[in-house]
């Protein structure tokens, strides 16, 4: 079985349960040709399990996995070695006893004269011309990962799974390699799922991000959608810097040091958590809606500055929030700022 037409991955109601109680529940996910989907979440949330289930290393307890037109799990079963999947691992996993040539040619079962040409072309594609007879141990991590990509592509995969493949690379070269790999995968129209715990990496590389928590998909969207319209407090915190403020709702209004925020359910009287992005603050100038603040202290932390102010709602405790450093000087000078409520995300405080 080799499914080349319509390279789409479709996962329906996929569930799996480990003996230790950890599980993934009812995962539904489609990945389209050339699309890069990043699965983001903390350790133990089930993101690597999801990859292992797709690859066939583990058997789901329920659900269906369809690659192209064929079910590989659910209505029928296809073992790992016949799923035609490409995979890159965090520890790269080049076969140490084989040369680059033999690593790439590992899946080319038929010995024919074209094999050499295929391998050379793949090496050219990943930018490693002339590495044919080198061994893994003599190459950098980035070069090894490029060889691993060439090896995976030699199998002509229907989908590509990336299990934190850039985590072991140094920060200086990581994105150069990552962009190259992603562009090759996009060019070959291969649906790609990448697992990572690094939100920055996900935002830079993904077309779509899936956020997982406790074995469930809790949010998904493009990087910009998730940054500005996340539906879950965890995703809001994950996708960028926030300041958290706890308050109680009174008559549908939540008081914050920067004014009140309306909530949809006006009858609700519970406790709420407000997550405020630094984007919410801007320079007041002479705007009538400017808010006066009393700055007690501040700390410069690069792109952002941490500011401590008096909280008029709760004078016993000061409040700390984050603003962009480039506007802080003005705020500090005037003790005034503008607050955009669109960048404040309100969630019931459970």
């Amino acid at each position, binding site marked *: 079985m080799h499914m080349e037409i319509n390279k789409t991955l479709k996962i329906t109601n996929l569930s799996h349960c480990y003996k230790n109680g950890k599980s993934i529940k009812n995962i539904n996910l489609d990945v389209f040709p050339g699309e890069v989907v990043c699965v983001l979440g903390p350790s133990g949330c089930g993101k690597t399990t999801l990859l292992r289930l797709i690859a066939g290393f583990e058997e789901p307890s329920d659900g269906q996995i369809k690659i192209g037109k064929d079910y590989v799990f659910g209505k029928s079963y296809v073992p790992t*070695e016949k799923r035609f999947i*490409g995979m890159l691992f965090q520890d790269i996993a080049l076969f*140490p006893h084989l040369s680059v040539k033999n690593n790439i040619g590992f899946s080319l079962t038929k010995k024919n004269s074209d094999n050499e040409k295929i391998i050379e072309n793949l090496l050219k594609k990943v930018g490693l011309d002339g590495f044919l007879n080198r061994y893994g141990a003599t190459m950098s991590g980035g070069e090894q990962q490029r060889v691993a990509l060439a090896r*995976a592509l030699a199998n002509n995969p229907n989908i590509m799974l990336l299990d934190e493949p850039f985590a072991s690379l140094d920060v200086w070269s990581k994105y150069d390699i990552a962009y190259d790999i992603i562009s090759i995968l996009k060019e070959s129209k291969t649906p790609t799922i990448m697992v990572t715990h690094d939100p920055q990496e996900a935002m830079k590389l993904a077309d779509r991000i899936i956020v997982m928590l406790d074995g469930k998909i809790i949010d998904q969207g493009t990087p910009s959608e998730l940054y500005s319209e996340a539906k879950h407090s965890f995703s809001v915190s994950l996708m960028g810097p926030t300041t958290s403020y706890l308050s109680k709702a009174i008559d549908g209004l939540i008081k914050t040091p920067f004014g009140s925020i309306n909530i949809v359910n006006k009858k609700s009287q519970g406790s709420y958590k407000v997550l405020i992005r630094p984007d919410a603050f801007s320079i007041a100038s002479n705007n009538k809606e400017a808010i006066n603040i009393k700055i007690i202290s501040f700390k410069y932390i690069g792109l952002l500055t941490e500011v401590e102010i008096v909280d008029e709602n709760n004078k016993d405790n000061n409040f700390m929030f984050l603003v962009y450093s480039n506007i802080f000087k003005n705020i500090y000078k005037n003790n005034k700022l503008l607050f955009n409520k669109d960048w404040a995300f309100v969630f019931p405080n459970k």
Partner: protein
Amino acid sequence: MINYLKHGWGLFSVLLCLTVIIPISTIIFFFLIPGDETWIHLRDNVLNSYISNSLYLMIFVGGGSIIIGSITAWLVAMYDFPFKKYLEWLLFMPLAIPSYAVAYCYADLLGYGGFITNNLGLIFNSNIKSINFYSIYGAVFVFIFSLYPYVYLLMRQAFISQSSAYIEIAKISGLNLLQIIRKICLPLSRPALAGGVTLVIMETLADYGVSDYLGINTFTKGIYKAWFNLGDITSAGKLSAILLFTVAIIIIIERKLRGKAQYNNEVRSNRVLQLKKLHGFTAILALFICIIPVIIGFIIPLITLISWSIESIDIIYTLEFINVAISSFGIAFFASLLCALFALIIVFGMRTNPKLVNPFARIASLGYSIPGAVAAIGVLIPLVWLDNTINNISLKYFNYSTGLIITGTWFGLLFAYLVRFLALSMQAVENSFIKISKSIDYAARILGKSNRKILTSIHIKIGWGGISLGLLIVFVDVLKELPATMILRPFGLSTLAIKAHELAIDERLYDASIPLLTIIFLCLIPLYFLTKVIRQE
């Protein structure tokens, strides 16, 4: 269909484990079978001496090995003194010499007209003509100086891996050297000590050559006698069951003593121990303490055997010796290959399907703690049953008696070696495979390779070094093995170990030296690899 594809390899591995587990399990049933007259006779007359002798050996050999192994390990791990880098590996060299060879040497050297007794008389002007070495004291002496390296190796490793932070804290707290050893180093090394002394005791209990030569009644000797001299498999089985039970208790005690072994490595920082340089008298004392066990356990027996061999070198050219060497190498070669094959399949099964295979593999690997004689009886029982069944069927349907067609063949002997030594092969293969990242397996599987292909084209090739070391270790152990070979050998088959033992029993020690030196020479090869590992550390 899905389950078969997923678990096929695992199920096959379990099946292989069971072939090894079954003979061990059959021994257990002998606890329940009522004994016949022979058993009652053995029970009433010799069982007490088996128990008391075995206990005596366990206590004194264990104690002596702890003292020698720990002190020498402490000295080489903590101090720098002249010739230390040579002593570090010389101290485990006694492992190359089988205990029974050490017994032959000292029985002769200390006997009437022996080299040591003669010279003692000259030096001290004493009237001692001989020292009676044919006693349990002689056996204790032999076992201590042959087996202390097990404690030495594990304790040395434990001392080296201890963080200097512990010792520094103890010094700051005002503890002196003895207090540091007693309160810090020994408790931290307890798992290693327990592991080392357990190996020593199990090797002592498994011995046949020393006890037979020195005339001491032990369980292994009793098992052999019950089967060969009395022809009573029930008594042999019952004795094996008691020995198996004793070994099980020792393993349980060892596990308890190990306790939470992992605490040993909790503060395993990069701050390795700084060796203290010894000078003058203390340096000479350390050198003296470390060199004595090497001289007694390795140098004296080796020189004695070499000097004997000069007298009997011609034996090498005899057809009999060549035949014995060929059959000995042949059976060791096939046994090591068989063990490696089983180990490769089982360990790979543990890797692909740990939940299913691991419990069976762990039980199968207990075989190494079972004395050779017990393994032999364990194998003998199902084989005799199989032979009898075949014979009965043949008699019933063809009116023809087949006799024993499996028992007493190479098959039975190889089977016993498999039961006894599979654990060694498994350990070697496991140590090789553990270094191969699981991602390598996944990468190969995802690239369309079957389990068999992954094993042959990746794991065996990457792990070849460790696998071949495992082959070598089993090869050497089979070459040295005595009790199981004596019980199960096909008629007319002799090995180097059996030949040496027979010649020694006939007091033809000079002739025995050639097969013994052949064994020792081959034993030095795996020890050479161990030396390399220690040097790399």
